[in-house]
């Protein structure tokens, strides 16, 4: 799923400063699952913003709602009338939802979240990046563990010299994390595919990643 984080409340209050009538619109897909922008979070954030604005002596009228998938016009359309009555919309969807609403409606659509990565639920309250959406999957060769997403240096022929004795990575941005290539080595052993580690990957063609510009997928057979 797409994992996002709510922006600091101070930043959200600053964005909302010029407005007095705002729709807080959540999304019931990925960001609801990662507890950042679902119906629940809409209620909490709206309550917090109302309290903050009341204590500043500048009350705000907030309408609360959430759509099934904000990245799809079809689900946003029932909200058209409500949206058009607002001064702005605070979107609690990922960046895709914010873009989608901005394309469709002529009023400011403000992002309440910082969209982070494609992740898995590691355990309740913890989400981890495991896919980088590079557009050229090699998971069948690496035991289902992605070195592009899970190696800090995106190495295809790892590990590097930065792997520590306990198998963790030298890059500690979010605390100690296992070296992707140690995980791949161990996993390939379990699958009796350790010979894969001897394959030398050639330089990756990154044009399928964002380096080829914004991506688009068209299925001719599905076009109406």
């Amino acid at each position, binding site marked *: 799923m797409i994992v996002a984080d709510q922006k600091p409340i101070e930043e959200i209050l600053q964005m909302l400063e010029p407005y007095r009538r705002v729709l807080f619109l959540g999304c019931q897909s990925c960001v609801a699952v990662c507890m950042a922008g679902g119906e629940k979070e809409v209620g909490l954030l709206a309550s917090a913003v109302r*309290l903050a604005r009341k*204590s500043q002596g500048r009350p705000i009228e907030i309408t609360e709602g959430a759509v099934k998938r904000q990245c799809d016009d079809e689900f946003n359309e029932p909200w058209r009338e409500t949206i058009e009555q607002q001064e702005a919309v605070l979107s609690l969807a990922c960046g895709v939802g914010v873009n989608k609403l901005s394309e469709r409606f002529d009023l400011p659509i403000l992002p309440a979240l910082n969209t982070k990565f494609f992740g898995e639920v590691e355990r309740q309250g913890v989400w981890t990046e495991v896919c980088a959406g590079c557009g050229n999957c090699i998971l069948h060769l690496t035991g289902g563990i992605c070195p592009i997403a899970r190696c800090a240096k995106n190495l295809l022929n790892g590990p590097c010299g930065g792997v520590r004795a306990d198998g963790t990575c030298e890059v500690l941005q979010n605390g100690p994390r296992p070296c992707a290539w140690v995980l791949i080595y161990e996993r390939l052993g379990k699958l009796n595919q350790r010979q894969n580690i001897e394959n030398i990957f050639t330089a990756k063609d990154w044009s399928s990643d964002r380096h080829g510009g914004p991506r688009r997928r068209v299925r001719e057979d599905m076009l109406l």
Partner: protein
Amino acid sequence: MSANAEPKIVAFCCHYCAFAAADLAGVLRLKYPPNVHIIRLPCTGKLDALYVLKAFEAGADGVIVAGCLEGSCHFISGNIRAKKRVLAIKKLLPKLGIEPERLEFFNLSSAQGDRFAQIAREMVERVRVLKGGGGKFS
């Protein structure tokens, strides 16, 4: 309501301890301020951050969350989870212009009627001395 009116306190009480303790305080004829409005929860683990924010929105001047003594939760860890939530809300409150002292988590057992009365008095007094005291959010 004008500022410094009599404070309104909402107390989210666990059915198995604080709620029973409040009942016991009544049976024991213990005096505690009538400004404390009790809402019974099946366990403080049921507490949601939204309950607390809504209480303030509705005009509460202080919020008590009262759960079982640590290790005595009927549902094993509901009180520990609630305490974590309360700590998170206490961090948020100052950013909304609300003093974090207006929210507190307490642990007590169902036999502590006197402790409940004491907590009620303590919270009312604590809120009374804060800027805006009672009626700040009305």
